[in-house]
């Protein structure tokens, strides 16, 4: 695609994107010169999960949802991207197939390069390679954070809710706090909250070290009920 078909505003925007950051102007011009443009209507897709990963895209306008489908057809939204975002970058890392579907949430336009073309530039420019690496490292970081939330915070809430529910039904006030007056094992709690014994033990130990609870064999005392309610209900942080 000829560079002159891109408006000056778009070219200005593209020189700011992380992929092209700190590159010499002539290299940016060459890269943009061979870019191709593709418009996709709302609700259609740039590519589908499982398609051969042959192109790398930069969104110019619109909004794109990246999601995966589970084998039983459930859709898992991984991220939603806006203008100037890179997507399909897995193609650069020898990904054979796209691991996600890139479906448009609005009418969208993107620039794209066949991976072989972009690889040609990367081979000549360590800075371009470094930019691509930084973008992917950013994605890894983001998904590590998401993973931690899924793996810990949500189970914490489920566990806090289960304990509060049991306590409100059977709790008994004792000098140290509220005794969960029921012989309940960590395995019971794990099954109630859809997690593992190991996770329940780890979270209970953490709460114990924070002074929220005291726990022993088949025994839990809630020392700071409000703290547990905070976790269970995700109460807004208090303004003091």
């Amino acid at each position, binding site marked *: 695609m000829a560079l002159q078909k891109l408006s000056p505003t778009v070219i200005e925007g593209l020189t700011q994107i992380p992929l092209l950051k700190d590159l010499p102007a002539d290299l940016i011009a060459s890269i943009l010169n061979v870019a191709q443009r593709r418009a996709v209507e709302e609700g259609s897709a740039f590519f589908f999960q499982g398609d051969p990963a042959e192109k790398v895209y930069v969104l110019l306008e619109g909004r794109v949802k990246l999601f995966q489908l589970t084998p039983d057809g459930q859709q898992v939204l991984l991220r939603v991207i806006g203008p100037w975002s890179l997507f399909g970058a897995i193609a650069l890392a020898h990904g054979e197939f796209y691991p996600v579907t890139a479906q448009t949430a609005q009418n969208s336009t993107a620039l794209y390069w066949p991976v072989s073309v972009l690889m040609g530039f990367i081979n000549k420019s360590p800075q371009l390679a470094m930019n691509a690496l930084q973008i992917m490292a950013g994605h890894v970081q983001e998904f590590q954070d998401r993973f931690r939330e899924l793996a810990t915070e949500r189970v914490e809430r489920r566990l806090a809710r289960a304990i*509060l*529910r049991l*306590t*409100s039904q059977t*709790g008994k*006030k004792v000098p140290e706090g*509220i005794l969960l007056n029921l012989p309940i094992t960590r395995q019971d709690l794990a099954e109630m909250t859809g997690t593992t014994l190991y996770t329940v033990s780890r979270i209970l130990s953490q709460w114990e070290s924070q002074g929220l609870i005291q726990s022993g064999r088949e025994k839990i005392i*809630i020392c700071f*009920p*409000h703290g*547990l*309610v905070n976790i269970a*209900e995700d*109460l807004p942080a*208090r*303004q*003091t």
Partner: protein
Amino acid sequence: MTDYSFTPETSVNDLVQKWPQVIPVFIQFHMACVGCSMSAFETLEDAANIYAIDPQLFMQRLEEAIRESSPAV
């Protein structure tokens, strides 16, 4: 004569059960106590401390809410 007797040791749940008209006071102080499963175990003093509210002021507001909504005696 209406019995206004409640103390800082009264549980949040007992108070709210007996005098539902105090509920707006909890809401004004941005307290999540109303409907909370732990309110049976927390005293009014506990609740004030948790939310860093002056216990005297809190007790006073609760008392006012009950008096204002009760028929004159």
